[in-house]
């Protein structure tokens, strides 16, 4: 079964600084999607960024970028120029290309210090 591991339960960053959240996963599939979701206190999950495993180029969305290392099964999220609104739980997730199920990590709670 696929597993997603986030080894950092909590992280903090100074406003305007850069922080990296770690994620590793285990799969025997060769084609899959990886995601980072943000969950603020409102509980509503919001997609931050998506990476297709067949793409070698790392995905980027404004201040958010990933470092995807397929051989190492690693998928980290870098947040640049951190803002107070970035404070939230961040979840890493996996879905096989041909699967219905999403597999989520246990999350990293990010605090942004003014």
């Amino acid at each position, binding site marked *: 079964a696929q597993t997603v591991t986030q080894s950092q339960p909590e992280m903090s960053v100074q406003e305007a600084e850069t922080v990296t959240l770690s994620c590793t996963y285990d799969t025997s599939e060769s084609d899959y999607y990886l995601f980072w979701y943000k969950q603020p206190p409102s509980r509503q999950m919001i997609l931050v960024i998506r990476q297709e495993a067949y793409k070698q180029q790392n995905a980027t969305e404004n201040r958010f970028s990933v470092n995807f290392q397929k051989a190492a099964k690693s998928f980290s999220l870098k947040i640049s120029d951190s803002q107070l609104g970035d404070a939230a739980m961040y979840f890493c997730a996996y879905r096989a290309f041909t699967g219905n199920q*999403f597999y989520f990590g246990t999350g990293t709670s990010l605090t942004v210090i003014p």
Partner: protein
Amino acid sequence: GAGVSQSPSNKVTEKGKDVELRCDPISGHTALYWYRQRLGQGLEFLIYFQGNSAPDKSGLPSDRFSAERTGESVSTLTIQRTQQEDSAVYLCASSTGLAGTTTYYEQYFGPGTRLTVT
């Protein structure tokens, strides 16, 4: 347009009672997921509906859990004879297209129902 809505927002129930949770997906979204999120944990997949196809129930933890959806409309998740370990936030998500394909369709999540079993 309106997003995914869920009701109730919070539900407190006594152990042994049945509860029904409701999800209203975004209009036109054919796919619908239910997830469970226990305190301090990630999301656990429960069930997936796609149009009129048979649902993928592989994530339901026991036969006390069931869900229904008629066509592309509202879905209800029912938990019978609730236990304290059922306490969690139950999240619903909908999307426009088929999972299980090489095309990705974004999931849009509702705000969840927080269930507390006393």
